[in-house]
């Protein structure tokens, strides 16, 4: 258990120095703040940028961050050193997961500042769930990829699908039909209503299926490759 804390502290220290990961964490929250305050177009739906960017953030940041962190540790063989120091694979993964989830929640907190106070708990609750799915998917990539280069090229298409599908769905009905099978699109629909009453069974079902698939994939990849591949 103590080792989970060690991993989280290590990551926190590294965050400020790790530009590629850092930019993932702050880009969308900062863009949201700027766009919400600086841009207003007539007839634009209320809180358009907050709702769109938060879903894109969800499909992008946790996924790329987790995959980048794990694959870098594999490539540089620091993961091996941790394992030799008797850090258990689940302790490591829990540490990375908690760290990324917490930072992303902080990012979501920043994005929530434009929302009416009453919507904030709903928003954060939905975001929290989505981050978990993205983290599981990111861990799959990190575990499956032998090094950073492969990890980046694997994460790219997955991330594009999850984060851009909700945006493209706005412009094209066909894409919307397909996008509905992804948790990010369902969460986008949830955020559009922003009420518990507005939750439809379909939303819950798709998000749950996505979550279960992500977990199954995660355990399958982990069982086949182990943490060190």
């Amino acid at each position, binding site marked *: 258990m103590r080792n989970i804390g*060690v991993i989280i502290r*290590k990551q926190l220290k*590294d965050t400020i*120095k790790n530009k590629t990961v850092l930019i993932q964490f702050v880009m969308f929250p900062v863009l949201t703040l700027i766009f919400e305050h600086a841009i207003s177009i007539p007839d634009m739906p209320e809180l358009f940028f907050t709702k769109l960017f938060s879903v894109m953030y969800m499909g992008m940041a946790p996924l790329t961050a987790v995959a980048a962190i794990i694959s870098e540790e594999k490539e540089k063989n620091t993961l091996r050193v941790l394992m030799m120091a008797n850090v258990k694979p689940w302790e490591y993964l829990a540490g990375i997961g908690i760290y990324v989830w917490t930072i992303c929640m902080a990012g979501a907190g920043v994005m929530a500042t434009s929302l009416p106070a009453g919507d904030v708990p709903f928003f954060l609750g939905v975001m929290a769930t989505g981050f978990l799915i993205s983290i599981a998917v990111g861990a799959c990539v990190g575990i499956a990829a032998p090094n950073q280069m492969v990890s980046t090229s694997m994460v790219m298409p997955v991330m594009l699908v999850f984060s851009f599908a909700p945006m493209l769905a706005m412009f094209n009905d066909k894409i919307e039909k397909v996008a509905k099978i992804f948790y990010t699109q369902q969460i986008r629909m949830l955020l559009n209503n922003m009420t518990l009453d507005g939750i439809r069974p379909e939303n819950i079902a798709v998000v749950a299926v996505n979550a279960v698939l992500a977990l199954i994939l995660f355990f399958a990849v982990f069982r086949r490759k182990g943490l060190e591949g």
Partner: protein
Amino acid sequence: MIKTIGICKSFSDRKVLSGIDLDIKPGMIFGLLGPSGAGKTTLIKIITGQLAPDSGEVNVLGRNVSELTGEDKKKIGIMMDNHGMYDRMSCTDNLKIFADIYGVPYSEISRTLKEVGLGDAAKTPAMKLSKGMRARLHLARVLMISPKILFLDEPTSGLDPMTMKYIHKLITEQKDKGCTVFLTTHNMEEATVLCDEVALLNEGKIVERGAPDQVCRRYNHQKKINIHLVSGEDIELAHEAGSAEELEKLMSQGKIETIHSSEPTLETVFIELTGRKLDNGEEAQYA
């Protein structure tokens, strides 16, 4: 302390280790010598439980290596050349991670950094360290935990002579503290000065073993005396009574510039046993 019985290991169809038996007593520096590709790293990985052998048994600290407890593992320091550092973090922060994991007090961090000569570089990010400094940081990471057993895979390979000497000193100090050291090297000089016992590994088998001077004496069958004359000429005499007269003549005539008896070194023993040089491959690698 470390015992292996009949370790065999193949990668696909290539047999890398075939029947390695070792018995390393506590408190000694043991050197595994062999050219690159001999299987030294593979053997260390097997002994430290990072790799499973195809057959054979490994006992470390009196226990089968697969059954080592967390407490046992905390007594084992492992330094492999491919093991990484957190490049963006400072030396201190790198060590802090492992101090936390091993439960070592933070006071040990600066003490160990000074011990390995990195006191001034404590705040330097690992990626800005020179090769020699990096090797010393690796060493600091394993020394900090005050190990009972130390595995060092080519600890001085590719380092400058100064750093090499420094690391030798640190290794000897560990031995003085009662630590058992298992190191690999392709440098026979290093093995001669450092190791209490060596084993020569070639093509997956241990071809010779014992204390370095013992091993050398065992192969002292050339028994030659090499003489360099003032004239610049080199002559070779048999190291036996029959050469005394000749030697006396040369000496009394003042013709001798230098005179050596040719004792074998670990290097020449190795060449004699295997027909190949120890550090051929590595030289090419670092050239």
